[in-house]
């Protein structure tokens, strides 16, 4: 599904160039549930942003379902991401002034989908996530777990092939975290490819494969059964 070859990313600050991703080579197959781990500053979130196509300042080769992402312009990348990728954030990033239903509807509102169809999709998603009763509430009226549930519902409403989650349970207590991770497992079982970034070993257990980054380098990959910095 995804193939990254020699992906590199750096930030320039004055005369200094800080490397956050170094020669990342990674192949993600459909249906995988990958956990990205590593200490703070290892480049986990940057890698996720590259995969989400939110970042386009990297170098290397990025193939998504056979399409060469590096040859696409900004608009094409955004369109591809809009169709195929969903994103879940650590701090949910729900819009305060929108209700639960409106937040879930947000990705659909940026596509040319008729209103009735959108309403049906939102109703289905609310039902699927068991939050029908909360549809008219605002984010501030929900618990953290409930907010993240809405965040996931928003990320999957357009049935993305790839779901990216950046520390999805980082702000939740363990019971809520478990509930969220069960939801991810269920989505993965239904066929969604998932890449999550986490510090939690427990959460990592839900995945089918774990890769570890250190100082921007791919340190280990359980699929390749390698440990140590690749060069």
């Amino acid at each position: 599904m995804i193939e990254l070859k020699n992906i590199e990313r750096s930030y320039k600050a004055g005369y200094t160039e800080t490397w956050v991703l170094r020669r990342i080579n990674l192949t993600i197959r459909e249906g995988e549930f990958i956990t990205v781990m590593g200490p703070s500053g290892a480049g986990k979130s940057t890698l996720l942003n590259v995969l989400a196509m939110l970042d386009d300042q990297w170098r290397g080769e990025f193939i998504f379902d056979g399409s060469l992402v590096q040859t696409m312009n900004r608009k094409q990348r955004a369109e591809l991401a809009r169709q195929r990728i969903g994103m879940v954030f650590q701090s949910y990033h729900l819009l305060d002034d929108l209700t639960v239903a409106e937040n879930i509807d947000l990705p659909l509102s940026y596509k040319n989908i008729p209103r009735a169809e959108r309403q049906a999709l939102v109703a289905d998603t609310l039902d699927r996530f068991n939050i029908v009763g909360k549809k008219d509430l605002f984010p501030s009226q929900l618990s953290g777990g409930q907010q993240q549930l809405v965040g996931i519902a928003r990320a999957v409403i357009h049935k993305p092939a790839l779901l990216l989650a950046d520390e999805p349970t980082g702000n939740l207590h363990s019971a809520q975290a478990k509930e969220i991770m069960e939801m991810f497992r269920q989505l993965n079982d239904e066929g969604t490819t998932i890449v999550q970034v986490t510090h939690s070993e427990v959460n990592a257990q839900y995945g089918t494969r774990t890769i570890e980054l250190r100082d921007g380098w791919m340190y280990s990959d359980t699929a390749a059964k390698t440990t140590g910095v690749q060069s």
Partner: protein
Amino acid sequence: MNGLIQDIQYALRQLRKAPGFTLTAVLTLALGIGATTAMYHVVQGVLLAPLPYPAADRLVGVAFTFPQEKPNSEQAGGSADFLKDHNKSFVSVGISVDGTSGVNLATGDGHAFQIASMKIDRGYFPTLGVQPMLGRNFSAEEDHANGPKAVLLSYLLWKREFNGDKNIVNKIVRINEESYTVVGVMPASLEVASESAPGVASTVDIWQPLQLSVKDPGYAGDNYNMVARLRDGVSITQAQQELSTLTPAFFKEFPFYERWTNSAKATRRFQAWPLQQVVVSGAQTSLLTMMAAVLAVLLVACLNLAVLMTARTWRRTREMAIRSALGASRKNLLRLLMCESLVLALVGGALGLILSRLAVPLLLRTVPIPIPPMQSSGWLPAGFTLLMACLTTLIFGLLPGWSVLRRDAGYALQSGGQVGISTHQAKMGDRLMIVQVAVAMVLLSASSLLLGSFLKLRSVSSGVMTEHLTVAQVTLKGNAYANALHTNQFIDKVLDGLKQYPGVQRIAAVNGLPLDRGLNFGGGPVGHLDTAGHMEFRAVTPGYFQTMGIPVLSGRDVEEDDNITSVPVVLISKTAAQKWWPGRSAIGEEVQLGKNAPALRVIGVVADTHSRSLAESPQVMIYVPFAQVSDHLMKVINGWFPTTFAIRLSRNVDIAAAVQRAVTSADPEIPVAKLTTMQTVIDRSVAAPRFFSYLAAGFAGFSLLLTMIGLFGLMSYQVTQRTREIGVRLAVGADRTQILLMVLRRSMLLIAIGLTIGAIASLTVPRLIGSVLEDYVFTGGRSISTVLSSGTIAFIAAASAMLLAAFAASYLPARRAASIEPTEALRTE
């Protein structure tokens, strides 16, 4: 006190750190407060200050006027005489001619120049309570018809032309080629302004005795003004009661005046108003409207600053929370916030005061409306500025400050300074913006309507060809020119002197140029006279129509042979021909200028011109050869109106010296009173609408600029505050065009609401503009609404300008929003 000083020091430091904001705020306030103070200065000095006469509250203006008219003191000669004889309410009464007129003053060296004269009766100055500083008032004999020729000098003329000669009294001066005895000099405090021509204010240089007599040509018309001093113990209401009883008595004695009716068929009546109201009534509507306009500009300025301050104060939410957590009370915080706006308002106010000092003389110099003399108002403008500064502080300081104080300090601190806009705060900024747009929209509508009306008026054809057309005016008053022969000799000499001058193509003379004043009276076709009708009379020399570019539609032009010995002839305007002989030729028909006047044969019909104003419909006009004007008529027209030479040049040449030479050689004591182009005459006739439209355009432009600054500030800040939200939207699939449109949509929504409110408020604008313009645009009885341009088009133009400005102001913040990098925006994680 220490706390306050500390707060002010802190405010100064904060302002120094934001020079862009500080400069914008100070300049905005300086212009807003400066314009308001300047306008208040004029309004206070003109409308509110008492008249400079002793016991001025006992003075009234007494008019013989139609109901519903504005306060005035118009009188006909007959009505003035009647009131003078029959009233019991007034201790004294003064009569003057309506407006000043130009007279020629000759100095000892044979040099002559034109000055402004006002004719008054001997009761005029005693009624006002003013005494000459040298000499005496006119005697009864001098004020009697054919009495001794006497003159009172103004202080300025006495100083300027007679070097302040203390022995001037009883000396002889040459006025209109006649000898006048100087009987006195009026004090410097008496600065009298009056209308010398519609819309032109002038200062009076000399006063001459009125010598009111039934034999005066203007006696029957409403050509006079009356002032009166109430008798002790008589109120103005009691005086009015008496005047009401005198009206029927007057009509009984003079039934002729009962036939004077207006368009509503109402008859005139005697009416008294406080003199203060009469003096200011001509300028009152304009001044108050201008005052309202500058207040609206000030309001826009304050709202604009409130919007900017709101955005600025939001940035300080965390600072306020920390201060609050450390023990600052709401009062302390409010004082801190108010200090900043107070510092800005005081600096802006001080600059505004300086600006207003410069603006008042400029305003008085450029305003083309007759503004009554201003009374000195001393410290009042400074006090007003201080009041404005305090008021503006309240408006743009308190509103944003209050929204911050309502916030929960704990929440602000917890959020680590990354707080977004609360719904309340967003609404506050939005509401301020909406009100600002609404007020600016009203100003824009007014400006658009005025500009449209001015252009509409300007596009009306005057009926003459103005290219290379110069006009020179002379005043031919006094006994020397009270006969036709001398007048025609003078005119012929000037024409002959200029005819051969290089560059002069054609030249002719007329008494009563288009768009200037001229004689009018009743008359009409023989057998169908309308003595109460209105017919414009012009005396012309041969070649007048060709010189002016007025086509002769049928018949022939005036010729040299049309003289006193030949058949009396007349040319009439197209309107006259159509009115008197509809559907058939007027050539050969006869008209009469009154019952006993000789019949004049119509020899030609000429195209219409505008006699007094571009706004009036073409009038019934008759043109008579100068050479056939009787002595009596010549005395009348020379007594009231200047004679004009129209000179068509073949190219641009400076003809001033040649005109002066030709006039001087014809009569050394006749000065050239005015030398200008016909285009200037036309431009002057629309000077008031042009002034108001430019002024309103200035106000509206300033408001629009402020609105753009405010909207730009608000949108920029809202984009900053919504960075995270925009990042999320981009992350969940929004493309950059959608983000751009989202910001623009929000801005346009605010504008749309503001426009709607402004549009509703603008419904009153046409009426208001109409009431301002009707004071200065002579419509000849037509409704002022015919002068105004389309209100709908004006509104569409204003709304388009606002939308365009709003789009321009919002586009940059929207572009910035659209270029937000989601990875950066979401890094707060």
